[in-house]
């Protein structure tokens, strides 16, 4: 039995070099995602998408100053490498009608490109906005968790390339422990705003790509309460049954009424 693996992205040691983005593109042979200037700090990638499986965020804000921290008068500049969260209960996996999206033996969520039929339902089922349909090809793509590399015992390309070990990779229990220790260390150094992003109390039930960020995770576009859309199924199908009942009873009554006349 292969161990369940996870990423732990420690944004406090990220230097924003984008080596993870490049390594990911290199290894997976992904096309370029355009050469656009966004004006949002040094982030010219924008967001995760069909051709972007790692995305370094450049957050200009002012976290609590601590030892080795910043002057309260200066903007701080922090970087965080974003990736598919490989949810414990994945919206895309639940929604996929073809069975193309599967859970691998390493606990990752993987889209089988030869099975995906491009219905794009996973795109509106991902609470993190990760999965995206390639308009030229019609199929959905996202981070594969380097399934091919993990199969032969290698680290994912991004974790391998990261020069500061901001992207750590290993068994999930170990990563959770490392994340906890790192957060406690930072807090003991006065960085009280360091926190781990892992939405275990939502219907997502936790993620396989933990993030340690300083300040509110919302400024990193990490939603406080991501929900798997299957939670809406019960209400939806009840409503559907009501609508079907209305149609059936309505037409019954209408035609019974019309024959009496």
């Amino acid at each position, binding site marked *: 039995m292969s161990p369940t693996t996870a990423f732990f992205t420690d944004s406090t040691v990220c230097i924003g070099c984008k080596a993870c983005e490049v390594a990911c593109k290199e290894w997976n042979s992904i096309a370029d995602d355009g050469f656009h200037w*966004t004006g*949002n*700090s040094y982030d010219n990638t924008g967001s995760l*998408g069909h051709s972007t499986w790692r995305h370094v965020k450049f957050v*200009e*804000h*002012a976290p*609590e100053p601590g030892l080795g921290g910043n002057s309260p*008068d200066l903007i701080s500049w922090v970087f965080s490498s974003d990736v598919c969260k490989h949810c414990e209960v994945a919206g895309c996996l*639940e*929604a996929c*009608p*073809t069975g*193309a999206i599967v859970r691998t033996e390493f606990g990752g969520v993987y889209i089988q490109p030869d099975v995906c*039929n*491009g*219905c*794009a*339902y996973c*795109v*509106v089922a*991902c*609470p*993190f*906005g990760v*999965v*995206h349909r390639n308009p030229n090809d*019609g199929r959905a793509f996202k981070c594969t968790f380097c399934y091919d590399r993990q199969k032969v015992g290698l680290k994912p390309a991004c974790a391998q390339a990261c020069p500061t070990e901001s992207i750590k990779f290993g068994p999930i229990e170990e990563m959770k422990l490392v994340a906890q220790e790192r957060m406690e260390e930072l807090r003991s150094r006065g960085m*009280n705003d360091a*926190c781990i*992003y892992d*939405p275990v109390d939502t219907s997502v039930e936790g993620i396989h790509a933990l993030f340690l960020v300083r300040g*509110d995770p*919302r*400024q990193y576009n990490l*939603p*406080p*309460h*991501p*929900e798997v*859309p*299957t939670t*809406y*199924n019960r*209400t*939806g*199908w009840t*409503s*559907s049954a009501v*609508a*079907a009942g*209305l*149609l*059936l009873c*309505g*037409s*019954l009554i*209408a*035609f019974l009424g*019309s024959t009496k006349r």
Partner: protein
Amino acid sequence: MSSNPHERSTPAHAELARENRLIEIRREAERKGHVEAHGIRLPGAPFPVASPETGYYGLHLLKEPCWSWEIPSYFFVGGAAGSAAVIGAMANWIGGDKRLARDCRMVAAGGAIISCGLLISDLGRPERFLAMLRVFKPQSPMSVGAWTLALFGSFSVAAALAGIATDRLGLPVRVLGNVAEAFSAAAGLPFSNYTGVLIGASVIPVWNKHVGSLPIYFGMSGLNSAVGILELMGHENPALNTLGIGAAAIETLEGVNIETSREPAAEPLKHGTSGFIARLGGIPSGPVPLALRLAAAFSGSRRSRKLRKAAAISSLAGSMLTRIAWVHAGHISARDWRLPLEIGQKKDSPFLAAEASPVSKMAKRA
């Protein structure tokens, strides 16, 4: 900090302030070899900020739906076809209106074929539709819907073909046709409204906040358009008018419900382009046919026929526009980064300790 251009930002002096600040920065650089304080920021300029108030530069975190014109059209055609199958079965067994039943079979079969065509066009290649039938996943409304379409399509086409074979060729397949019609009606019941569940069970706020009413709304819209198509085909069965009144009344109620809703996620249905289309479609599919049909029920046959034709055209146009509006509203809703980030909802982040309160200093400065 006294040199901050924010503090003397009267429009007349803004240009001068920026020039003075530039000179200060140059002098400081010459003197110390580096500059400590802020650079130049134009007062009121849209300087992008990542903060708990603005999210990540106000970029949306959810992805917009990747669907084009085929999907709202499919919602419209599928809704009408599914409802037509149910109307046809009732007309056959209870109403005794054989002509109406025959045309309903045609509408249901035609609608199912067009539905498949639209879905294949959205997917790109015909065999991609078959991939939908690899597995059955009850937790995925898309999977349930694909199987419903497959069943509905098979039975409604079988019913239509059996009908033609019986009427034109005199083959003894009437019983077979009736059995197929029964199954087609059974599949038509969920098929006419499942698209509401399909988009409701998603992460798009405007859709999932309405998941309890969308299937009813879509179902009634489908019934309204089925009645419209059958009336335009020349059917005058009073049962159709009764069904039309019921559907238009429920659609009107739904419209009132959305207009009076204070739900922030419902905003795209009331403002902007999607709001305009929603109203443009809501009025001719709810109150207009309701009034016309009620008038038709209490007037002479010639006048009634004209009123019903007008109601039919109005509800068909309204039904199509309504589906376009809902899909468009989904795009607008996905772009609203405030909703998934719970910004402006006075909820604290569950990931931060209480003492490290998420107060942005950027926002304080602004």
